[in-house]
């Protein structure tokens, strides 16, 4: 049985390259399981997993829940109101609750960066970061990398572009750490004020020209433009964003080369990406969704599993 060194999945910055590769490899095994008539394995039979969501989520939460159920774990869902997070009281209480409830694993989404790492200092069960503010969203990046590997058969040496609001994106940051570790070349494209000033220190290159990105890339990961960024002076208008950074079918048709299009969802059709592109042959967006379940099964199995599942 394969093993990983890490005790938690807090982010891809502080996990070894070997562990990332193992998670992806085991992810492909679970991908096969998901193609079977009976998609459930007894790997985590008797384990209690709590999904703690201090921030709204539909897709990530469903994906984790499905992964847990297909591993035969017992699942508890807990969604805190955002008001309790605003008071800042939640983390301490969370810790005590987990101790009392004797959970075997915590999957946590929280709006504040570092919350999962802080939690791991106090709780001795595995913590899986399902997104901590503008920090990391490691399972999203793992499923993105798994999808790239599925499509190209490798990751090393590929040119991967990421376009969108990089500054506020935990998806981007986890992808950057993971892809660089696995030997991909990463180029970011964003309005200049939506890029971290020091991001190039982490081995990526940047451009403000989305056409340059498309020319260069084998695959482009298109980030969702969060509507809450509009109207606070960050993005002047949808029209302007589309014009300079949108992945439109017209723009793609101007480039001779065909590139793979990815998107973490949910898609704002007609904003950061056109419907024809999202639904077209170049896109692997639905493969990403399926790989999301598989890679989350892999993470939970590797952190918790003692029983062989086959």
């Amino acid at each position, binding site marked *: 049985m394969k093993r990983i060194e890490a005790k938690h999945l807090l982010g891809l*910055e502080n996990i070894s390259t070997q562990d990332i590769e193992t998670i992806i490899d085991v992810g492909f095994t679970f991908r096969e399981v998901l193609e079977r008539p009976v998609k459930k394995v007894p790997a985590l039979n008797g384990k209690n997993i709590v999904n703690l969501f201090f921030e709204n989520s539909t897709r990530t939460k469903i994906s984790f829940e499905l992964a847990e159920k297909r591993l035969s774990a017992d699942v508890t869902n807990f969604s805190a109101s955002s008001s309790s997070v605003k*008071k*800042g009281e939640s983390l301490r209480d969370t810790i005590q609750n987990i101790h009392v409830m004797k959970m075997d694993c915590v999957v946590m989404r929280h709006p504040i*960066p*570092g919350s999962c790492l802080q939690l791991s200092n106090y709780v001795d069960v595995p913590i899986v970061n399902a997104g901590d*503010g503008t920090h990391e969203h490691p399972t999203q990046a793992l499923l993105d990398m798994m999808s790239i590997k599925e499509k190209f058969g490798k990751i090393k040496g590929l040119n991967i572009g990421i376009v969108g609001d990089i500054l506020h994106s935990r998806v981007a940051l986890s992808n950057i750490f993971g892809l660089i570790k696995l030997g991909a070349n990463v180029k970011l494209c964003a309005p200049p004020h939506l890029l971290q*000033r*020091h991001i190039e*220190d982490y081995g990526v290159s940047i451009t403000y020209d989305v056409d340059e990105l498309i020319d260069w890339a084998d695959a482009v990961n298109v980030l969702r433009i969060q509507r809450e960024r509009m109207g606070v002076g960050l993005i002047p208008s949808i029209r302007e964003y589309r014009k300079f950074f949108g992945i439109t079918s017209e723009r793609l048709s101007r480039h001779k080369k065909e590139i793979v299009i990815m998107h973490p969802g949910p898609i704002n059709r007609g904003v950061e990406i056109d419907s024809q592109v999202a639904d077209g042959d170049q896109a692997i967006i639905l493969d990403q969704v399926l790989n999301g379940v598989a890679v989350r099964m892999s993470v939970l199995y590797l952190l918790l599993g003692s029983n062989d599942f086959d």
Partner: protein
Amino acid sequence: MILIKGLEKNKGFILLKGGRLYEPFLSIDKKNDILIKDDVIVKINKSIKEEKNYKVINCDNNIITNGFLDLHVHFREPGFEFKETIKTGSISAFYGGFTRVCTMPNTDPVIDSPELIKFIIEESQDTPVYIHPIGAITKGQKGLEISEIGEMVEAGAVAISDDGIPVKNSQVLRFALEYAKKFNIPVINHAEDNCLVNDGLMHEGKMSTKLGLPGNPDIAESSMVYRDLAISEYVGGRLHVPHVSSFKSLEIIKIFRDKGVDVTAEVTPHHLSLTDSILRNYDTNAKVAPPIRSSKDQKALIDAIKSGLIDCIATDHAPHANEDKDRDFKHASCGMIGLESAFGIVNKTLAAEKVDITDIIDLFTVKPSRVMNIIPNVIKEGNIAEINIIDPVCKWIFDQNSIKSKSNNSALLDREMFGKVLYSMNKGYILNCKV
């Protein structure tokens, strides 16, 4: 008076034997014995003969010098006594060698009237330290109208500041800098442009990028330092810049000082000794305002101490209860305690940079005295004994269990310190800081 182990009122004679007396206020630096009766220095001589009724403290290899002055502390009283009180804060100060402190006015209520200034001073009467309160620049720290500055000065205030709340309205700051000239006190403005801070939670740099924490850029500080100094120069004011954190602010302070503008500046022990890498595990004890910055900034702060551009050390002692710090990084309170670790960490940092021990002592004594225009009981016959006995090379660990403050929020816990105040004396009290 609350009693702690090692603290007592001195009755009778104490002879400090064999120490090096360094008295920067009187330019004395030589071996001297000092005889103290009750609370007063009765004799200073190169050799004083022991008598049977003398309690003798052997000061071989130690330095006898003035009590320290910290011109920037938070004692939280009134209003936040669960974090610190005037009494617990005073004991913490005395344990760190500070015989005088200036308290910031961000209490509840805000210290913005002569009555409240008097309250602080009265509460400090039966503690071993002298408290010199700082009054608020504006009523309620609201930044709108200047408070009764003259009345507060008459009641004992030594400076004005809205503490952690920058005076946003430039015209209000101009009024304050102009009006304060009549009372010959410095104006202290926390320099951070909150629009540029933009909800930043740590220094904007390589580390904030990795941690995904919103960054607070150095220009948030330096641009306001520039504004403050431009106004101060224009009106001939007297500005003191608190807790300078960035290389860029130092550049600006230097430009104005070279032009002859009356500006002073302080640095905290944590900005001087730490870099933003301390936050790699989201340690909320290292969350402070302004944030701890890059190694380039830290080096510039050390250089500014050496060149004299920074006048003195001030701890910005900011006690917070565990529940204020045991939170996610955004909601955890800003600040760390500093009085008890100040000398040990500053001496360690600067000794490694080959700064002489006398220059280090000046940063805690004569230099902050000049900034705030506070004259201590200098070390001479007939004066109250306001004295520290220092071992400049003693190595010790800053341990949570030894902390005398009511709070223990420090990013320096468990670190090795270099140099320690062994005894502090003031107002007839003597504290053995070794126990």
